[in-house]
Every structure is written in C-alpha cells, then in structure tokens.
C-alpha cells in the first residue's frame, strides 16, 4: 500500500540529479552509506548471516561443541514422522484459527462501541487498552490463578450462572479454550487501530446512506466494513504471524501441558534447540515455521482482492 508510495518518491528524486555527478554528490553518497552502516552491518551479521546459517544447519545434526554432521534432507523427513511436530503444529493452528478471528471480532465490536459518543470515552478506551501493555510473563502468572479450578475467578462466575467450572489448565480438553479466552484480554492494541480506522471513514458516506434509508446495520455492512477492510487485513496478517510465535504464556503457565495440550510450535522448537540441543532439527522446524507464515501471508494477500476495498482503486 503506502510502502510503494514511500519507495517511489526518492526514485524520482535521484533521477533528477545524476548518480555520482560531482564531488558534492559523491560526498553525499559516502555519507549516506556511513549513516546506514549500523543497519548494513546488523543486516549482514545478525540477519543475512544467521538466515543462511540456519538454512545450512537445517540439513545437519548439530549440537554446540560438536562438529555439524551433514544429514541431507533427513531433518525434514524426520519432521513428517514426528508425532510431536504434528501435535504442536495442530495446537498452534487451532489456537490461531480461534484466537485471531475471535480477537478481530472482539476488537471490532469494542472499537464500534468506543467510537460512539459516550460519556467517559477516554476512561473506557484506557480500560480496554491497558491489558495489552501486560506482557506474556505477567499474564501467564496472573491467569494461571484466574483459571484455577477451585478458587479461580472464571469458575466463580460460571458458578454464579449455575454452570460447573472445568479444570481449565488441568484438563487437556479445556486448556486450549483457556488460552484462547486469555488472548482476548489483550485485544486492546487492535481496538486502538480499529478506532482510528473507523474515524477515517468519511461521514458523508453515512449521511448519504441514511438519506437513502439504510439502517445502521446496513450502513455497518456496506460502508464501515469495506472502508476499514485494509486495516482488518493488516491485523489479520500480523495476528497470524504473532500467534504462530506464541511462547512465553505456554512456557510459564502450563509448560506445554497437560498431556501436551498447550505444546505450541515455538515451545517445541525451543525445547529441541535449547533443552535437547538438537539445533539442526530445530533449524528445520524454524524454516518450516517461516514457510507457513509466508504461505499464510501470500494467500491472504492474493485473496484480499476479493474482500479488501482500497479507496480510489475501485473493485476489480
């Protein structure tokens, strides 16, 4: 979107002058490289280098202190016969399939509510935003108690409704629902983004629709949703990238249990790399994760023509 514009402007600027035309522009070029050198060095040392190394490692057996042993494709073959790999992938996928869409719907609902003219708007916005400031560590420690089967807050409210409270973090069937519920507590960041998007929708559109007799639900469906769809797409992509890298909450709250019910992909990868020092295999797992994220993003971007509305471009 705006990345393309951002890149286009300097192209025009650099064509006006020649490259290396005079001593002055040569000096400017040298200064330019100097200014960006921290990133250039960081890119080579901390990014490009490790990426290549990770790719090479994924074809080896390697643990620190020993020479890597070339294995060819066996790490990848091993993945597809590894039950825990499949299991962690399934856990992470189920979590993503529920927590991302539910999070977007919750955030959108809250954003619409907070966008109404209400007294105490700022206070409400703060209340909904604050939880997203809390990190995985603190969230895990607090929610381990909130989901406590006997004394927990959640089961207390269920008991008020006359419902039996499950053993959330002790019963493998209820662990994933607990993680998903917990993730909804942190939607505040998305709410803020959505509020900004809602405020960007031109009021004339609503007024025109109202004159045409469209009710508020129709206006939401045919004006609000299409107008903010680019932001929804963005939040969907960043949400998926985020949930596929869930780590701290499961590491701290359940340690991946019970019965591996919360063995997230990154937790399994972490154990391979840093508990069992199977760094070659862990690198293969990391590359597979990268692939999944790339494919998800590509699919969403490719299919976005169907449902994302870009102002000024019209629909194809």
């Amino acid at each position: 979107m705006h990345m393309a514009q951002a890149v286009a402007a300097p192209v025009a600027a650099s064509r006006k002058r020649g490259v290396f035309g005079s001593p002055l522009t040569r000096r400017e070029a040298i200064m330019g490289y100097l200014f960006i050198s921290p990133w250039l060095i960081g890119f080579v040392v901390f990014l490009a280098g490790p990426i290549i190394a990770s790719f090479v490692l994924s074809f080896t057996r390697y643990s620190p202190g020993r020479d890597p042993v070339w294995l060819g494709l066996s790490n990848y073959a091993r993945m597809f016969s590894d039950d825990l790999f499949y299991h962690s992938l399934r856990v992470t996928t189920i979590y993503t399939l529920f927590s991302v869409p539910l999070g977007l719907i919750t955030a959108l609902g809250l954003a619409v509510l907070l966008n109404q003219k209400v007294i105490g708007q700022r206070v409400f916005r703060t209340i909904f935003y604050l939880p997203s400031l809390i990190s995985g560590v603190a969230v895990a420690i607090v929610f381990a108690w909130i989901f406590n089967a006997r004394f927990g807050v959640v089961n207390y409210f269920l008991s008020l409704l006359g419902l039996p409270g499950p053993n959330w973090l002790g019963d493998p069937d209820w662990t994933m629902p607990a993680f998903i519920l917990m993730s909804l507590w942190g939607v505040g960041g998305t709410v803020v983004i959505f509020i900004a998007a809602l405020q960007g929708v031109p009021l004339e559109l609503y007024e025109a629709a109202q004159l045409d007799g469209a009710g508020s639900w129709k206006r939401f469906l045919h004006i609000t949703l299409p107008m903010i769809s680019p932001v929804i797409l963005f939040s969907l992509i960043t949400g998926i990238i985020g949930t596929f890298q869930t780590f701290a909450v499961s590491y701290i709250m359940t340690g991946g249990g019970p019965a591996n019910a919360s063995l997230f992909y990154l937790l399994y990868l972490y154990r391979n790399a840093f508990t069992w020092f199977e760094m070659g295999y862990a690198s293969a797992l990391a590359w597979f994760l990268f692939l999944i994220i790339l494919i998800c993003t590509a699919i969403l971007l490719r299919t976005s023509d169907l449902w994302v509305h870009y102002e000024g471009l019209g629909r194809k």
Partner: protein
Amino acid sequence: MAAIPFKRHSAQWYVRQIARNVVVYGLLIGLGAIFILPFLWSVTSSLRETGAPLSFPPQFLPTQFNWGNYVRVFEMIPFATFFRNSVIVTTLAVFGELLSASLVAFGFARLRFPGRNLLFIVLLSTMMIPYPVTMIPSFILWVRGLGMANTFGPLVLPPFFGPAFSIFLLRQFFMTINTELDEAAKIDGASEFRIYWQIILPLAKPALATIAIFSFMANWNDFLTPLIYLSDRNLYTLALGINFLRNMRGGGELALQMAGAVMFVAPCIILYFLAQRFVIQGIVTTGLKG
C-alpha cells in the same frame, strides 16, 4: 450517527435513542468490568494475608493491606538486582535503538546514494522474517563465536544495529520534514551530521518518543531472549525473575506471586500514563500493538 438537522423527532425516535444508550453503556460497563477485573483481583490478592486459605468467592477489592508481602518478595528473590538488570538492559537497548534507527533513517530519508531504494526494500522485507529463524545461529554466534553467554551483550547490542521497524517509522517521519531547512544549512556549510543532530532530531522528538516507549515495553517484557542467554541468576532480568519466584520453594503463595507481578508491570503502566499521547499515536501510525 449524525441526525439530520431541522427534523422533528418522533416519540419513537427518542425511545430508540434511549434503548440504544442503555445497550451501549450496558456493554461498555459490563465488558469494561471484565477487562479491569484481573487488575483489581491481582492487586487485591497481592495484599491478602499469606498462608491464609484462598477465599471463595474471590475478592476483587482489598479488605486487608499486608504491604509486607511486597517486602517479602525482595527477601525471597534478589528483586532489587533483577530490577536493576532490567533497567540496565532496557535503558541500553532503548538508547541503542534510538541512536541507530535515527542515523539509518536519516540516511534513507535525506541522503542520496546508489542502491538506496533497493536497500530500503531489503530493509522492509526483513520485517517479515520471524525471530525463530535467526534465533539458533544468533545463539551460536553470541555464545560460541563471541563468548557472550551470561552477559547482557546479546540483549543490548542488537538494537545498536538498526531495528528495521523503527528505521521504517522514523524514515517515514523524516520524509515529512521540509527539506528547505537542511538545504539552507547545507549552503551555510553544515555537515550532514550537524543537520541530523541539530535540525532533524529536535523536530523528530514525538516520533523518537514513540519509538522509545515501544522499545521500552518490548525489552522490559522480553522473556525468550533472556531465557536463552542468561542462566546466571545474578543476571536475570525481572521477566525471568518473577517466573523464578513462582517456581521456587515457598513461591507457590498467591500473594507473593501477585506482589511480584504488580511490581513487574507497574513501570509499563506508569510509562503509559505519562506518555499516553505518544503511545496511541504510535499504534495508530504504525499498526504496532504494544
């Protein structure tokens, strides 16, 4: 939505407005209560008497104030040391990120050099790469290559080498600053570094504040990186420290865990209230979620 002016409203219209308000306020207050409850409950629990049986129904407002629980946390774990470690790591990382990101962004936004656009596209695409892909070779590099296991190096040095997201944000901001000022300074013979330092940076204070806050939150809360690199307990950051408290003998006590969690979270909450404006602006312009 905005009512059409000079139209008399019917009684039905007023009834609908009232019903609408009841629904909106009902939902806001109900959901707001759910969102704020974990905060109230943790603070209340942090002040309960240790060793007493857990209360059911749970308490949401404190009836007792055992502030001594907070002191006990300092005695059970070297809390002051963990806190200091977190402050050191976070301060250095924020400083490094501000310095390197602003230098690099200035280069991309203000100076012309061959390959600039290609390099900027490379920079943008690096934001796509998930951390786990580089995690293992980086570990090998830091620990085996540079011998920096159990130092703050692996936590603090990478921000000095240009984090892509902050560079992107600052570069966009620098592009909006009028070039007339630097052209004038250039004619007066000012060096690029002086233009960066004396013209651009002072104008970019709001953007720098936004980056500083998000960098603070990210580094203060980071769990995975210190977990990988720090095994010496004296070097633990607070994120590792409160997890350590939870797992140690006698750490199963609710009140102490909550006291630890409250003290861990407090700096982020305070910072948010001090700099609310920058936080909200930052989220809106970058799509970053904090």
